[in-house]
């Protein structure tokens, strides 16, 4: 068996992975860096992001306001030191992307244009029409091509982290084209594998979003943080789950129930105005909008389709010119996939699983508790997103924390000696497991697709927009059963060349672990906060749960949960106010001033 060796491995070639690779290359040109990705980097899911990336750049805006919007949007579960670092570095990172050629949309005078976004009090979302993620990813990918030290393992699927005595030493991966299993050793590994939307049946996430990195880290002994916080985006197209970007509402789109009524006004989100109002109505945060949809559905005020209830997104009043200029992809997707023209027709939409706030627990430099293991982007939980991420913070997060993690990993790797004891033996064991459990096995009775469908239905039914104890308990038992049945999977495909069925079976294993972690964390958090709404515990409980859930894996596959206090620097927990002419800015300023004066932060009460 071959072993190849690098100083730093990036697992995943999306925005976070590529940004980390460049950051590592800039620490020292002599470092050997490799990006290992199960798809060609330009296929990574960053490509699907539409609306934009947040970073303060205009004169009327401030870092404190971006931080406050993020923290209140996250229902005070964000670590405020991380948020402060994030808002400070985001604009520089977005300028950096501009220098690398990203075709950001512009003002007539040539400066960067910004648009409004949900939960943001100022316009600070940079955009490249409504294909922002696509342009960022291709700009990053094309830029990495000029860095000779960055090697690529395209279409290599990582099945396991190499761990020796708690220290991460590389990965075991399958080269899909040949089926060859190989150890790739490294001084530091950075997980940048993105989210896990495919754990649910109805998601905006691409087929490749299986929580790989979360499961890899969890199995290696790193804790997962805040996995109960799953974001539903309020506007997905029925059947396909294709996202209609929040930018559609930022440009002035309305959400209408079946009576043509802007129903959000009934949910403490403000009063309807003809033009978009920041932090109000359709520009409220995603958790509150998705929850309002469910309430509206319960009142019988949604429309019924073969693919579930829907409401309407109305863009008609924006006019063809604005739609073509600002939202061309929305129009293209509606025409192509929904056979309707948003210039003239209403768009049917329903909430759709979109983003995982939780992930591999890291500090502000992407370090996990395991030496040698780092994580950045959606796979990680720093946490800047708390209980509910604001739209356009995640692309900027990939850049800011991709750079930080890449840099930290490079500095760590520079100080380490080559050290890969047991790597070869572990890779041999992994190869044997793949052969005996999948490729050589005969007589298994289960199909990958059948277990996957049952898992998705189970998670949706228990850990959807609203949750309660009995269904979560049942789901936990069902997922345990599916874990056991997954051991009995039988493949049709026993060949080594590009075996996508083997890959699906391994991805199913990752997803089952992630599904269990979501349900487990949701079961233990007996409060409602942000995207985690418990009908049996409808109130936020700062006394017990101003804390991150940390889920650890035990040797026998079971889990144990612990809580870690949220870091509060300047913004003590308060009420989330949207759509009211409140004084959050002044209140915030007062709180900030006070906190700066006495240099004391509110101590977080720890949950037992």
């Amino acid at each position, binding site marked *: 068996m071959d072993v190849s060796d690098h100083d730093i491995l990036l697992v995943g070639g999306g925005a976070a992975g590529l940004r980390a690779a460049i950051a590592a290359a800039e620490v020292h040109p002599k470092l050997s860096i490799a990006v290992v990705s199960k798809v060609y980097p330009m296929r990574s899911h960053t490509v699907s992001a539409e609306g934009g990336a947040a970073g303060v750049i205009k004169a009327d805006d401030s870092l404190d306001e971006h931080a406050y919007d993020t923290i209140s949007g996250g229902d005070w579960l964000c670590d405020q030191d991380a948020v402060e670092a994030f808002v400070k570095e985001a604009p*520089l990172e977005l*300028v950096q992307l*501009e220098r690398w050629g990203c075709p950001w949309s512009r003002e007539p005078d040539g400066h960067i244009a910004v648009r409004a976004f949900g939960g943001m009090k100022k316009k600070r979302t940079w955009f490249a029409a409504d294909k922002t993620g696509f342009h960022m990813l291709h700009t990053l990918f094309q830029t990495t091509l000029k860095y000779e030290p960055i090697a690529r393992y395209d279409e290599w699927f990582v099945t396991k982290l190499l761990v020796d005595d708690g220290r991460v030493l590389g990965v075991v991966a399958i080269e899909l084209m040949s089926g060859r299993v190989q150890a790739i050793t490294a001084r530091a590994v950075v997980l940048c594998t993105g989210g896990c939307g495919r754990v649910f049946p109805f998601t905006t996430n691409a*087929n490749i979003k299986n929580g790989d990195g979360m499961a890899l880290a969890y199995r290696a002994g790193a804790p997962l943080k805040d996995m109960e916080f799953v974001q539903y985006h309020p506007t997905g197209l029925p059947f396909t789950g294709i996202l209609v970007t929040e930018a559609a509402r930022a440009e002035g789109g309305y959400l209408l129930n079946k009576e043509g009524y802007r129903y959000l006004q009934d949910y403490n989100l403000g009063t309807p105005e003809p033009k978009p109002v920041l932090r109000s109505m359709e520009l409220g945060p995603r958790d509150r909008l998705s929850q309002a949809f469910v309430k509206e559905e319960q009142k019988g005020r949604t429309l019924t389709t073969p693919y579930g209830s829907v409401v309407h997104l109305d863009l008609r009043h924006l006019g063809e010119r604005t739609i073509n200029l600002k939202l061309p*992809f929305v129009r*293209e997707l509606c025409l192509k996939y929904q056979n309707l023209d948003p210039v003239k027709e209403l768009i049917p939409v329903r909430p759709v699983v979109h983003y995982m706030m939780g992930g591999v627990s890291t500090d502000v430099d992407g370090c996990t508790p395991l030496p040698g293991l780092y994580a950045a982007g959606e796979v990680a939980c720093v946490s800047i997103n708390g209980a509910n991420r604001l739209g356009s913070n995640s692309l900027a997060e990939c850049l800011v924390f991709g750079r930080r993690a890449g840099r930290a990993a490079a500095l760590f790797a520079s100080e380490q000696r080559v050290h890969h004891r047991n790597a070869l033996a572990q890779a041999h064991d992994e190869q044997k497991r793949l052969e005996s459990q999948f490729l050589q096995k005969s007589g298994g009775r289960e*199909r990958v*697709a059948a277990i996957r469908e049952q898992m998705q239905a189970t998670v949706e039914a228990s850990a959807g927009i609203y949750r309660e104890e009995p269904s979560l308990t049942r789901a936990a038992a069902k997922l345990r059963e599916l874990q056991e049945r997954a051991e009995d999977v039988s493949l049709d495909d026993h060949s080594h060349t590009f075996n996508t069925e083997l890959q699906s079976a391994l991805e199913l294993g990752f997803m089952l672990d992630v599904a269990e972690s979501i349900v487990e964390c949701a079961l233990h958090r007996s409060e409602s906060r942000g995207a985690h709404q418990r009908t049996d515990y409808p109130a936020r409980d700062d006394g017990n749960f101003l804390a991150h859930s940390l889920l650890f894996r035990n040797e026998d596959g079971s889990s144990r949960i612990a809580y870690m206090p949220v870091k509060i620097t300047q913004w003590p927990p308060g009420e989330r106010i949207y759509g009211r002419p409140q004084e959050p800015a002044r209140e915030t300023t007062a709180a900030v001033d006070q906190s700066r004066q006495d240099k004391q932060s509110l101590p977080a009460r720890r949950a037992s």
Partner: protein
Amino acid sequence: MGESIVLEIARYSPERDAEPHLETYEVPLRKEWVVLDALNHIKDKIDGSLTYRWSCRMGICGSCGVMVNGEPKLGCATFLSSYAGRKRVRVEPLRYFPIVRDLVTELGDFLAKLKKVKPWLIRTDGPLLREGEYLQTPEQLDDYRQLSMCINCTLCYSACPVVGLDALFVGPAAIALAQRYNKDSRDRGAKERTLILAHPDGIWGCTFVGECTRVCPQHVDPAGAIQQYKVGSALAWFEGLIMPKKRRKTEDRHGAAAD
């Protein structure tokens, strides 16, 4: 069960087959199903060994290009219902690429060609990051915006007769990408790229059939980019013809600088 449709799918496994062959599968004909949904149906319910690439299912990741009835298409953007009257729908791997297995083609050569045209912003005089962005007006953005839309799906390579005849031809998407940077007001690298594009395997390979533009799902118009470039670089080409030594020297110098 309602209506159905028959797919003929090219199957090939290097471990088993000497060459590709067709197998037929009957799948439900649902109005919201695209070709990719049919492939997923077959993989999940009928034959788990069917092999193809896919990811975003929204026409932006560029993974799922296949030949459908002889035309290069994105599997996720091609509705089964548009073939409803036909007896069979034939699905094959993208033409002119080596086949890895079933519908999966080899992309290494394509990626090498992309890299060859230096698809990154070339400029050395930039101000510090904290001094802010380069200015670029919406009109300047419009000069290259459409060329920046390429999703690397490689449909244009399967449509291009020159790619079929000459494996060295750098090809439509790579030329369009080079031109995307050449036309970006922030870029200073057009001269460097000329050395690559003015080569016989560069733009002059193109016989202007225009098929690349016709099949492009993002309306990038590679044929237009190539034509524009031909006009723009005619001078460099003539210099190369009249003074071949001078051109070779320039190339050598450039090669040394790059090392």
